[in-house]
C-alpha cells in the first residue's frame, strides 16, 4: 500500500523461474497490506545481512486460550513499524485438509481485513497459518473465525492439532477411518489443545496404513498407523497381468520384500503371511492385484520427536494392533493414562519419548497398565543390568 515500494533486488530475482514464487505471493499480498509490504523489506534486509530480524515472541493470545498464537516482534521496528508486531495464528484445519471454496474464501476475507493477507497452507503440524498480525487484531480475528466455524489449533505445552492422511476418503489402503478418528480426538481434547496443562507439546498423527503419508512415526508423540492382522488379499490373475505388462515381479516385488517371504513362479504369487511384516511394498507396486487383509486396525506408537534436546526419536510400538471403531474408548483410555502419568511426572520441556527413556519403558508400561510384549522392542536387552525391586532377606 506504500506508494513507492522500496527496492528488493535480491527478492525480485526469486520471482523468476518455473516454480511458483513466494515473493510473488508477498507482493500480491502487499498490494492490499502494508504489513506484507514491509515484510518484503525485512526479508530483503535479511538477504543482505544474512541474519533473521525477528525477536523471541512474547506471551500473546486470545482470551481464555493459552495456545494458538505465536508472538513475534521485529528487531528493526523503527525501520518497519507495520511489522513491529507480527504474530501468527494457528487455525485448526479440517481433517484431511478437505475444503469447499466458500469456507476457504471466508478465511481469506477475515484475514485480508485484519492481517497481512499471507498464509501458510498449511503449517508443518497441519494448521492453517495466518502469518503476521498485530496484537490488537487477535480478538477480532478469533471472533470472526469462530463465527464461521473455525477454531484455533495448538501451540506451546498442549495437545497439538491432530492431523491425518487422506485415508478412506481417497485411498484404497486405509485400515481405519483416519478422518473420523482425527475429528473425534480433536473435539475430545479441545480443552487440552487450547489450554497448556502438560509438561511440553504432545502431537497426535494418524496414517491409514504403513506408508504413513502424514509422517506420523517421525513427527508425532502418539503415532497411529494402520495395519492388518490376517493375510494379504491376492488377485492372482491381476498379478499375471502386471507381469504380462512388463513388471519384473521377482526383481521388483519379491526380491525387495524385507522379509523375503514371497515367491513368484511365473504364474502364481506365494506369500508366507506369517513372515510378512506388513511393509506395503508389494501392495504399493501392484495396487490392482494386492490389498491389505480384512482384519484391519492400527499399530499405536509412542514418543516420536525432533532432536531438541537429547536427540530425535521415531515413535516406538506401544500397542501392536488395536481395532479402531467409534467411540474409540480403548484408545482414549490409553491416551488418558499417558497424559495423566506424563502430566504428573514429566519434567518441564520433557517430551513423552524422553520421559519414557528416563523412567524406562518397562516401568512406563507398568504405570499405564500395559503388558510388556516382544513386539515393542527390536530385541530383548543385551546388557545384564536388570533391576529387581525386591529381594529375599535371610531369616534372622
Amino acid at each position, binding site marked *: 500500500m506504500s506508494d513507492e515500494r522500496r527496492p528488493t533486488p535480491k527478492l525480485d530475482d526469486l520471482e523468476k523461474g518455473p516454480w511458483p514464487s513466494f515473493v510473488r505471493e508477498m507482493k500480491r499480498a502487499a498490494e492490499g497490506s502494508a504489513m506484507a509490504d514491509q515484510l518484503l523489506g525485512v526479508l530483503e534486509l535479511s538477504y543482505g545481512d544474512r541474519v533473521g530480524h525477528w525477536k523471541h515472541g512474547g506471551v500473546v493470545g486470545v482470551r481464555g486460550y493459552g495456545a494458538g498464537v505465536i508472538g513475534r516482534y521485529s528487531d528493526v521496528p523503527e525501520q518497519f513499524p507495520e511489522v513491529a508486531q507480527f504474530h501468527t495464528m494457528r487455525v485448526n484445519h*479440517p481433517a484431511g485438509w478437505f475444503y469447499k471454496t466458500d469456507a476457504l474464501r471466508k478465511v481469506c476475507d477475515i484475514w485480508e481485513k485484519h492481517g497481512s493477507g499471507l498464509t501458510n497452507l498449511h503449517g508443518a503440524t497441519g494448521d492453517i497459518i495466518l502469518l503476521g498480525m498485530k496484537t490488537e487484531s487477535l480478538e477480532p480475528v478469533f471472533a470472526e473465525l469462530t463465527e464461521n466455524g473455525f477454531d484455533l489449533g495448538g501451540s506451546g505445552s498442549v495437545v497439538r492439532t491432530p492431523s491425518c492422511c487422506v485415508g478412506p476418503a*481417497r485411498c484404497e489402503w486405509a485400515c481405519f477411518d483416519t478422518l473420523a478418528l482425527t475429528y473425534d480426538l480433536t473435539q475430545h481434547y479441545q480443552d487440552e489443545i487450547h489450554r497448556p496443562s502438560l509438561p511440553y507439546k504432545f502431537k497426535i498423527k494418524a496414517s491409514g496404513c504403513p506408508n504413513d503419508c502424514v509422517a506420523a512415526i517421525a513427527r508425532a508423540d502418539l503415532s497411529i498407523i494402520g495395519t492388518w492382522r490376517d493375510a494379504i488379499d491376492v488377485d492372482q490373475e491381476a498379478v499375471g497381468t502386471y507381469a504380462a505388462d512388463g513388471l519384473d515381479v521377482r526383481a521388483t516385488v519379491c526380491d525387495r520384500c524385507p522379509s523375503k517371504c514371497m515367491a513368484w513362479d511365473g504364474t502364481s504369487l506365494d506369500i508366507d503371511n506369517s513372515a510378512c511384516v506388513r511393509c506395503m511394498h508389494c501392495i504399493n507396486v501392484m495396487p490392482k492385484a494386492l490389498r491389505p487383509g480384512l482384519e484391519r486396525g492400527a499399530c499405536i506408537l509412542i514418543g516420536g520427536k525432533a532432536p531438541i534436546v537429547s*536427540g530425535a526419536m521415531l515413535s516406538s510400538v506401544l500397542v501392536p494392533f488395536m481395532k479402531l471403531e467409534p467411540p474409540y474408548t480403548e484408545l482414549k483410555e490409553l491416551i488418558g493414562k499417558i497424559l495423566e502419568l506424563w502430566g504428573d511426572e514429566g519434567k518441564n520441556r520433557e517430551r513423552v519419548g524422553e520421559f519414557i527413556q528416563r523412567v524406562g519403558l518397562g516401568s512406563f508400561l507398568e504405570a499405564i497398565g500395559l503388558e510388556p510384549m516382544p513386539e515393542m522392542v527390536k530385541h530383548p536387552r543385551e546388557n545384564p543390568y536388570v533391576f529387581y525391586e525386591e529381594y529375599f532377606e535371610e531369616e534372622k
Partner: protein
Amino acid sequence: MPDIAKRKTDIGPPHYEQFLPPIIKANYGKWKYHEIPRPGVLVHVGETGDRLYTVRAGSPRLLSVQTIRQICDLADKYCDGYLRFTSRHNIEFLLTDPAKIDLLIADLATAGFPVGGTGNALSNIVHTQGWIHCHSAATDASGIVKALMDELIGHFTSMDLPGKLRVALACCVNMCGAVHCSDIAILGIHRRPPKINHDRLPKMCELPTVVASCPTAAIRPVRKDGHETVEVAEELCMFCGNCYTVCPAMPLNDPLNDGVSIWVGGKVSNARSEPGFSKLAIPFLPNNPPRWPEVVDAVKKLVDVWAANARPYERMGEWIERIGWPRFFRLTGIEFTKQHIDDFRHAETTFRRSVHVKR
C-alpha cells in the same frame, strides 16, 4: 464477564464431511485401486466403478489471500468447489469428469502452477518459516526452496526417478517438519556459541532454567559486574540453541557462522526398509542469498548420482545402504570428515562393529 461468555470457544475445526465431494461420500472406505495416468494425475477407482480424478499442483505454501481465491476459482470451475491440500502442502483438485483434466492443467499453467509430484517423483519440499517469521532461523526457508525447485522441477512434473524423493528443509535444529527423516534434508545450523547479553539476561531469564537447558552442561552461573548471569564454556557448545529457546538474551544467530548442512537417506514409510533418520552428507555450506548456489548444486548432484545408480523403488537411503557409505562418498565426491562421525549420546552405536566393509 459477559463478554467472554458470549464468545464461542472450543468449537474445534469444521467437520470434514461437509467438505467431501459427493463421489467421495459415495465411495468412502470403498476405493478399490488407483492408477497414475500421467504425472500429477491420480485416478481412484471405487468398488462401484466410480472414478475420481485428482490433479495435484505444486504450491509455494506461502499463499496470499489473492492466490487462494484464484485457486478457489479454479476449484469452482472444475470441481464443484471441492479441493484439498496434501501433507506436503500441494494443492489437489478433485474431478469427476476426465475431460476437464486437460483444461484444468492448462489453466493452472497459466496461473503459474506446475502439475506433478505423484509416483516415483520429487514432491514439494516441506519447509519452515526461515527469515520470514522465526527468531531461531540459521537460514531462510522459502528462498532455498524456490531456488532448488526452479532447478529440480523436471523431477516434479515427470516420474523419471527410481523411487519417491522427499526433500525437506528446516531453518534450525528444532527441525519443524519431518526433516530428520527425509531422502534429502537441508538444515540450517549455527556454528557459534550464544552471544550473551549480560545486561538483559538477568532481567529476562530464569538462571536455573537456563543452566539446565544445556544438554552438554556448557552453561554455568557466574557473577559479572555485580549481577548474576551465566557464561558458556564454548568448547562444549554444539550450537543446539536450546538455551536461546528458553532465554532470548542468548542469541545464536550470526551472519558469519550460520549456514546450511545437507543430510541424506532418511525415510518415513515402512515400505521395504524401516523408517529411519537422515545422515550427515555435507556439514556446512554458506548462506548465499538469494539463490544459495552451493546448496542447489550439492542437492542436484545428490539427486543425479542417486537417479543414475538406484534400482526401481530404491529410496536414497536404501540405495546407499546397498552400495555402502564409502562408495556413496566416492561417487558424490563429498569429503568424509571428523564431523561425519557421531559424538553425541549414542555415538558408539554408529561405529562399525564388524569387518563387513563394502569397498
